[in-house]
């Protein structure tokens, strides 16, 4: 993607398009990857509440996994999971 020029950028660095953070894929910052152990999960969605990004995928109130394009691997979901259903694994292993 070619980068915007001085003339194209909104002055003041304002973001005038709501939700544009979806376009910025922060997943490549990650050094640890969350892995869901589905059999332990009770779908309490504590992970969804705590995720500082928007990286917990859900469907019909059920935990479905992670949005790896945006998950930075902070591990907050794993730390807060009451059932230890999320484990963090080093990337590249």
């Amino acid at each position: 993607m070619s980068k915007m020029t001085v003339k194209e950028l909104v002055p003041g660095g304002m973001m005038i398009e709501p939700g544009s953070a979806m376009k910025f894929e922060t997943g490549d910052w990650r050094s640890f990857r969350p892995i869901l152990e589905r059999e332990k999960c009770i779908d309490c969605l504590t992970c969804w509440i705590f995720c500082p990004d928007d990286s917990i995928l859900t469907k019909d109130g059920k935990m479905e996994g992670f949005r790896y394009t945006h998950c930075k691997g902070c591990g907050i979901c794993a730390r807060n999971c009451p059932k230890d259903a999320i484990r963090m694994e080093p990337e590249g292993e």
Partner: protein
Amino acid sequence: MNIGINGDSAIALAWKQIDPDVCAAYPITPQTIIVERFSDFVADGEVDTEFVTTESEHSAMTVCIGSASAGARTVTATASAGMAYMWEMLGIASGMRVPITMAVANRTLSAPLNIHCDHSDVMSTRDTGWVLLFAENVQEAYDNTIMAMRIGEHKDVRLPVMHNLDGFILTHAIERMTTLDTHDVKDFVGKYTIDHSLLDIKNPITHGVMDLQDYFFEHKYQLVEAMENAKGVIEEVFEDFAALSGRKYEMLESYRCDDAEYVTVVIGSTAGTMKEAVDQLREEGHKVGCIKVRVFRPFPIEKFKELLTGRKMVAVMDRHISLGSTGPMFNEVCSSVIDVDDSPDVVNYVYGLGGRDVPVSDLKEVYMNMIEGKCKKVNFLGVRL
């Protein structure tokens, strides 16, 4: 109408006539009268302004940035240590392109503790992306307050503006001044409109974003262009203001310079004293003149080039010293004439620090030193060595 009024009250009066949406401020000598008078107008219901009394200047500027981002015409005032305390937010105001206008009652920076005039406060903020205007007298302090709004809010500029006046010398001295009709002032400043308001919930925006290696430089360059645009806008606003008031201002005001061989460059209230020195020396047959700087940012480099080329010698008067270097204006004036064929000798006079009185006799001495070839490159006017 002609009235007797001090500089601070004149600014409060201009604000009353403008009736800005928000004023967020913290009092500090010698700016205090501005916010005191203006808070009276708010309390008495003479303006509709929301007056936010903050716990510090840092917070004052933060409130100003928020309210201006929301679309409110926003004013504030400070001086010296107060401006130093809000310094971090000054660059944020310009970087976020919010056209706040701020009156600055120029006072030195401690230590030693001193409440009197020099330009160390404003000159230390010269790189923060604010348009900088200066006043010679109370009338100009009032006029600058009104013009500042039109300059900063112009769609091609969108920069915050500081309008400076010398602490105590102008802030507390009562001078005769001609006021404008309130209706005319309101017409002149017009309505503040912005393209993207922080409070427009139908079109949500994010303000104050992070901007890394790939975009920061481009956003800074937009400020470079805005400052360049400000030059034309300032001229336009000066023209319109002349049509309204009969007072025609210039970015650089040249006084008896036509055939002058020896010229000084001066900012603020000292310009008045300098004109008297010029008049007296002209009487004695010396070809002298002075240039008063009304606009320091954007720096009118082309105008300096035009006005200084061909002079024998130029003395740049700095009421501030960039310690370890020279007066800041000296450097910039030098760079404005460095590439002309007939470039004058330029010397620097640092003067009036901490409010040191600057009598006509001292300023005449500056000219006589130039004429008699007694100047050093950097001189300290009247300091006891």
